[in-house]
């Protein structure tokens, strides 16, 4: 199918981006990596009359970490840059892993973490780790800013709570406390390129006695949106995890999942793999947390 026609705007400031989004609100899309959008447009699934490029906006690619404040991923920060960032690698290894294995080298060099989130695929690889780290989205429009918890962000496949005229300026991830561990594991039929058939991310923070202060578990590709597993988290919080408790929490993750049969895997296989991956994620996170460093 031929590419539809459209106008490309290449503003240099966030203010101009927001003006353009407001002015063309009825038929406008943001363009950054374009790795999802341009494919959808060529397939005829989207036909915006205006594209507003973020690629010449100053300051939007920044990835910064500050102790206490945590991590801020700019709206135009590339997946590969996030995956290579030293602070991300040492403190947020689940996110670093997602950003190092998803899609292909070229797509990671082009695509952004914010785009992966806004595209809102149930299988979005950065979504499960970001949920496990308790991330929020900073949405901005001409009138102002709001912070949206990632748990409240996704409303369905390809759907989010973002309003027309609103865009993701940054993703904020809370700082990591001492005695924390985290991990993201994904499965796909092919080792590369392919979309994940199941993804599980976990985060554990222990007190000095080895009891779980905070647990977060998140799943990808097993429901209409990436999702957290509150029941599983409550099984572990306040407890000293052992193999039996970890298996129980993983079983609660399976109950939280609502997988479907599709060409990548059957629902039954996905459920079985949520159990296995959740156990592995929790075991690794626990080892890491006990090691004293995340």
């Amino acid at each position, binding site marked *: 199918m031929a*590419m*539809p*026609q*459209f*106008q*490309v705007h*290449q503003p240099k400031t966030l203010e101009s981006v927001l003006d353009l989004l407001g002015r063309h609100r009825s038929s406008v899309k943001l*363009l950054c*990596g*374009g*790795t999802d959008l*341009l*494919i959808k447009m*060529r397939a005829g699934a989207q036909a915006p009359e205006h*594209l507003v*490029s973020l*690629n010449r906006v100053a300051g939007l690619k920044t990835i910064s970490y500050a102790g206490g404040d945590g991590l801020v991923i700019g709206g135009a920060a590339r997946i*590969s840059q996030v995956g290579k960032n030293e602070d991300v690698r040492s403190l947020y290894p689940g996110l670093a892993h997602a950003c190092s294995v998803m*899609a*292909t*080298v*070229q*797509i990671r*060099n*082009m695509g952004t973490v914010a785009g992966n989130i806004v595209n809102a695929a149930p299988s979005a690889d950065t979504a499960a780790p970001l949920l496990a780290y308790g991330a929020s989205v900073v949405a901005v429009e001409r009138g102002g800013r709001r912070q949206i918890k990632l748990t409240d962000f996704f409303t369905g496949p390809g759907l989010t709570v973002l309003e027309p005229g609103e865009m993701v300026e940054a993703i904020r991830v809370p700082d990591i406390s001492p005695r924390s561990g985290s991990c993201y594991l994904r499965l796909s039929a092919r080792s*590369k*390129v392919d979309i994940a058939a199941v993804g599980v991310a976990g985060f554990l923070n222990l007190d000095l006695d080895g009891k779980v202060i905070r647990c977060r578990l998140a799943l990808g590709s097993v429901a209409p949106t990436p999702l957290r597993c509150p029941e599983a988290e409550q099984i572990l919080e306040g407890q000293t995890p052992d193999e039996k408790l970890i298996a129980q929490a993983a079983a609660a993750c399976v109950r939280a999942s609502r997988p479907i049969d599709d060409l990548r895997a059957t629902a039954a296989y996905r459920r079985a793999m949520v159990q296995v991956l959740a156990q592995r994620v929790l075991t690794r996170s626990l080892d890491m947390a006990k090691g004293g460093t995340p």
Partner: protein
Amino acid sequence: MAKQNIELIVNGDRYQVAVEPNRMLVDVLREDLGLTGTKIGCAQGDCGACTVLMDGVSISSCLTLAVEAHQRDLTTIEGLSTSPQELHPLQESFVQHGAVQCGYCTPGMVMSAKHLLDNNPKPSEEEIRQGLSGNLCRCTGYNKIVEAIGAAAEEMASSGKEG
């Protein structure tokens, strides 16, 4: 749709072209500039045949609007070797190791290998395979390509040649 005047900097040469906003970089490289070394395979970012470097980073030129490449520094397979008489060590190594069969994926493979070695001059076999994860070859089974890149890395390290 009104054409937009852009400047493409390809392999150090500057080109002024007028392009429709909906044209892809790969099409402008091939059709307007005559640089047909860059190939179109899947046209949706899976196969890597269209890989070029933009500001030193490997990208899929089939998923990049030409207008977005305005005044960015592009390198295509045609610009890899510094002289018309000589192949780049990566190209030479592909020839020596029989890493080329039908040849359609080769430009993309070489550009991805170039990006890999620029960032990691001494990659392990696994790192080479990861570095090629965005490039499909339906002929070679990849082994010859992986060997060629490993040998080129050694050759470039021992001769002290910049990629």
